[in-house]
């Protein structure tokens, strides 16, 4: 029997190697399709993202919102609620946070920051909560609702930064600089790495404890695996769905607020392009394990920042990053399928 277990591990390691290899080959094929050298591409990508201090700092900066939103996606997906609306929740969180500190000027520093972040969480939570409630109350697909909400939120943002919240100068589609007290300072001088990093890591620990050691986390898991069993066990499954969406949206909203408070310092168009979709990839690669999410976010940060460098230095069109990400997602799914098959074979 020991041998069987070892054999299974070996097969899984082999499958992992095979999937990684297949993914690299697929990525290399696309690079070659563009008439570029794949080895040079990978060298530039990793060289900038991991080999230079500046590049790695940018990777961390990019990973912070991905980690927060990825945690949110993980919470919802664990509950079998497919929140594809992190994009919208990020935007609504940021808008509400910015609106709050603009509406009440002159708050003392720490309080302003607390209000800013709390409103970010609230905005995302309410927006996500709507989708959760519609699913729990009417059985409406949260996938479609959250996607529709994304488009609505993005239109709302483009209006806000051209209308009610536009800067006093009225030149660009963006808000005025937000009060310094509400902003997050730099954590590492000489880079753009801000205190949002500490927040993201703290959130990771909190979500881990909540999922692993609280009754809410347990209920999320049961509802996610089998809502019928959950109901028979006396769990109010619909309530859990709404709560999971509130938490999921809240984390995404926090990501939006942190991105503004730490990086942009003002509301502007398209400040988090595609982060919500990326957050799904982050959560899937982490296999919905909160503690793995920061690492997964770092990897996608490397992909993103590295692809930017590749576009600058080699001229490979930037949308290739989405192809790489799709390869990673399909790779994760393929690996999951192999794992399921070996488990079935053993049973």
């Amino acid at each position, binding site marked *: 029997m020991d041998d069987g277990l070892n054999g299974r591990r070996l097969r899984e390691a082999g499958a992992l190697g095979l999937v990684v290899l297949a993914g690299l080959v697929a990525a290399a094929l696309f690079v070659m399709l563009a008439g570029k050298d794949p080895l040079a591409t990978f060298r530039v990508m990793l060289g900038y993202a991991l080999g230079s201090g500046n590049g790695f700092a940018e990777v961390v900066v990019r990973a912070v919102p991905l980690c927060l939103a990825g945690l949110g996606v993980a919470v919802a997906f664990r509950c079998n609620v497919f929140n594809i609306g992190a994009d919208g929740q990020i935007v609504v969180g940021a808008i509400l946070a910015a609106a709050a500190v603009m509406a009440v000027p002159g708050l003392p520093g720490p309080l302003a920051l607390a209000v800013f972040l709390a409103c970010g969480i609230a905005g995302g939570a309410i927006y996500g909560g709507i989708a959760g409630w519609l699913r729990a109350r009417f059985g409406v697909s949260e996938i479609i609702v959250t996607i529709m909400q994304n488009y609505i939120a993005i239109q709302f943002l483009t209006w806000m930064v051209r209308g009610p919240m536009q800067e006093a100068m009225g030149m660009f589609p963006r808000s005025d600089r937000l009060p310094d007290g509400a902003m997050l300072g730099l954590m590492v001088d000489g880079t753009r790495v801000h205190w949002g990093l500490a927040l993201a890591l703290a959130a990771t620990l909190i979500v881990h404890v909540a999922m692993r050691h609280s009754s809410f986390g347990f209920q999320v898991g049961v509802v996610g695996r089998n809502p019928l069993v959950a109901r028979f066990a006396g769990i109010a499954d619909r309530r859990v769905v709404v709560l999971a969406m509130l938490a999921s949206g809240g984390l995404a909203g926090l990501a939006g607020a942190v991105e503004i408070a730490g990086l942009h310092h003002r509301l502007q168009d398209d400040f988090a392009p595609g982060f919500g979709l990326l957050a799904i990839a982050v959560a899937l690669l982490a296999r919905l394990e909160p503690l793995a999410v920061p690492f997964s976010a770092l990897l996608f940060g490397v992909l993103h920042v590295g692809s930017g460098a590749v576009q600058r230095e080699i001229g490979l069109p930037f949308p290739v990053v989405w*192809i790489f990400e799709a390869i990673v997602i399909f790779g994760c799914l393929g690996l999951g399928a192999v794992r399921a098959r070996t488990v079935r074979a053993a049973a």
Partner: protein
Amino acid sequence: MIDMLFLIGLAASAFRFATPILFASLGETIGQRAGVLNVGLEGIMLVGAFMGVLGAVWTGSPWGGLALAIIGGIAMAALHGLFCLVFRVDQILSGIALIVLGTGLSGFGYRLTLGAAGTPPKAPPFPRLEISGLTDLPVIGPILFQHQPMVYLGIAMAILLAWFLRHTTWGLEIRAVGENPAAADAAGIDVNRRRWAAVLFGGAMAAAGGCYLSVSQVGGFVENMVSGRGFIAIACVVFGQWRPLRVLCAALLFGAAEAAQIRLQLIAPNVPYQLFVMMPYVVAIAALVLAARSTRLPAALGKAFVR
């Protein structure tokens, strides 16, 4: 009289705006009736939109574009089939991967080919169908009889598929594998074979819808131009209760919402235009909530079949 002209224009363009959504949602209807959910329509439509323009420019004919788009759509759907039917991974997750892949493939491909030049070449559009006598009819003529062929093709497909599902053996078998695959299997139907056919058909249809959007409506490709229509198409399937003719009505409803939205922007320039752009998305959510009470989805939707 201006009101009348306005309404005629609105009704006519409702058909045009409905067409991309209609194609995608008819394909999805067949897929879901066979038990396979594809939330990646958005990605497939993007690939279809890009390949359509590419093929139209290459061959100089919009039909060449449609052919290339359909090939692209089938390839995307084959990936979905591979992961859902062979590897049996979660259909929703595979669909999400398709969205990301379609975004990448269309954007990447566009920048390598058409977008590499300064001004992208214009795609030759489909010819407008003028039916002598009918097109000149008052009111009905401009609304119904001066569209491009794909508009009629879409409507014909809805009627054809309604008949197909109800009155043919294949239609019955497709419904059977979506409702009760075990029973279908016991009756000697190759479940996964029917599902493969339905999935590939869905991919071809979604890509055709994307092709109409880019080649006909916009006259070129723009990155992320599908902007949620893939999901509105899924909403149409649910709102249309998985029946092709009702799905046609749902698609027309969204076409009308989009046509109205654009006209309202012009009528009310003082209202921020973004509020109007939001409209179709709000309508989609409202439609789903309305349809929720009477929803009865195919029983085996989303479940892999294991013998």
